[in-house]
């Protein structure tokens, strides 16, 4: 009898906490999303009218930012994958006894606050930094081109900030590959590209899936990179939600947008996991 109860007792405090401070808030957010402002009431006073059109209005009004969020997040994820895969591969197979040191170095930049690093990028890419004058000297960009306040800067900042989230799961699954399988493939006359396509990549798929999810999800909801490195023309959904909460005090719209974002992400993630065929994620 005691044995059967043990797991539930272990789960109870944590799940009670998560229920109160994760599930309840989400339910509450769903309720807020269909409210409308009280006629003649103060700012920030809303009543439940089950107005589902809030979702439609919020989406139409912000479809540009919506599209941008998913475009930027996708670009950042693809770029991060392109940078992180060879890096993880090199650490797993080519680093010898320095494997642990290099692994620590991947995580190390994390410890300097990511906001400090993002602001550092803003200054490096800014007019007073060294990148812009150099590129201008070599004529790569024109005198009037700037790097900050552009979509380029936002996507680059996101790629940078989420790179460790991509590298670590990739490393974990590449490191697990038995090097003998690669040798076997070579013995069977596969060239480097075929070996990668038929052996390395399929075996590292769990890492690819985990890494892309860990990058895409926070990237789609991010607004810090867009706020620091971007301009009003690069606003993402996160920026809209933030300003609806703090500046406009329009909770229903903010809630509807949050919910739409979460639903869109969950649908994409589910489709993606189905397609990539890895159920064992957590």
């Amino acid at each position, binding site marked *: 009898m005691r044995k059967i109860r043990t797991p539930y007792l272990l789960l109870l405090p944590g799940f009670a906490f998560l229920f109160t401070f994760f599930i309840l808030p989400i339910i509450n*957010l769903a309720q807020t999303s269909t409210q409308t402002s009280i006629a003649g009431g103060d700012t920030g006073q809303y009543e439940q009218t089950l107005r589902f059109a809030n979702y439609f209005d919020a989406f139409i009004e912000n479809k540009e930012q919506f599209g941008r969020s998913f475009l930027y997040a996708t670009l950042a994820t693809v770029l991060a994958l392109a940078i992180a895969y060879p*890096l993880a591969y090199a650490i797993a197979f080519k680093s010898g006894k320095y494997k642990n040191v290099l692994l620590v170095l991947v995580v190390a930049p994390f410890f300097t606050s990511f*906001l400090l690093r993002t602001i*550092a990028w803003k200054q490096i890419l800014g007019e007073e930094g060294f990148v812009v004058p150099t590129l201008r000297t070599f004529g790569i960009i024109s005198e009037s081109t700037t790097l900050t306040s552009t979509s380029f800067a936002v996507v680059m900042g996101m790629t940078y900030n989420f790179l460790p989230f991509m590298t670590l799961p990739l490393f974990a699954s590449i490191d697990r590959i038995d090097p003998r399988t690669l040798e076997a493939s070579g013995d069977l006359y596969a060239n480097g590209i075929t070996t990668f396509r038929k052996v390395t990549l399929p075996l590292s798929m769990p890492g690819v899936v985990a890494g892309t999810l860990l990058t895409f999800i926070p990237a789609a909801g991010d607004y810090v990179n867009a706020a620091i490195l971007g301009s009003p023309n690069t606003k993402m959904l996160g920026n809209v939600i933030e300003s609806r909460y703090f500046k406009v005090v329009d909770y229903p719209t903010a809630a509807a947008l949050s919910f739409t974002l979460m639903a869109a992400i969950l649908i994409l993630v589910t489709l993606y996991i189905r397609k990539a065929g890895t159920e064992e994620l957590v």
Partner: protein
Amino acid sequence: MSQKIKDATIPTIPLGARIQRWVGRNLIKIYAFIAFTYLFIPVAYTFAFSFNDSGKSNLIWKGFTLDNWKNPCGAPEVCNALGNSIKIGLLATIFSTILGTMIAFAIGRHKFKGRSTSNLLIFLPMATPEIVLGASLLSLFLVFKINPGFWPTVIAHIVFCISFVVVTVKARIASLDPRLEQAAMDLYANEFQTFRRVTLPLVAPGIAGAALLAFSLSFDDFIITNFNSGTLTTFPKFIYVSAARGIPAQANVIGSAMFFLALAIVIVGQLVNRRRVR
């Protein structure tokens, strides 16, 4: 004989071809080197500008000074914000590590009804964008007329740290050799003794790693904090708010110091681990 052949062949390959071959063979290492450079450019920049004799706004290099390092609380708001971040981080770490470890043991060690639902409940907070987590908690607090501030922030941090603790500790539990515990039982240790003397010490590095992860997640969090902290300032929030009018160089000092401190902790941890393995 073989020495002779080597001597004879090397000069016949032209330099260009040799460089090409070296690059080809080390391509991935060169690539890794470039990737690391990319990772460290802003860290180096932050470190360099911690020595800037900048006054209020740390935008342009004005000269070398050690003053910022000698007096990191020279800008008092920085240290105040840092103190809050550390307090919140420690509380969030303690609670999320305890709750998360318990969940990890339940899921990792027991077969029970609702196990897959439990896994889902752990996965969901990680799949929820931070902004949704932060916004939904804030609206709950508003409904119950709780003002955003210190404790709401701590609660918010525990919420998003728990899942990461569970995943980390669970991975460690999964990698345990069950025979070690069976051996302890065979030697007449009861369940509690087995847990305390065998299981827990073996899982401890995983728990320590999870705690470190929770602290760094909490310490560096901005989005969720921004929603639930009200007028309270944390270190990341301070940087964000003061970004427009210029961040004092003391913030760079603290950012760099955190970097070296964390690096030291990780290295010491590695050394301790290695000695234990031996």
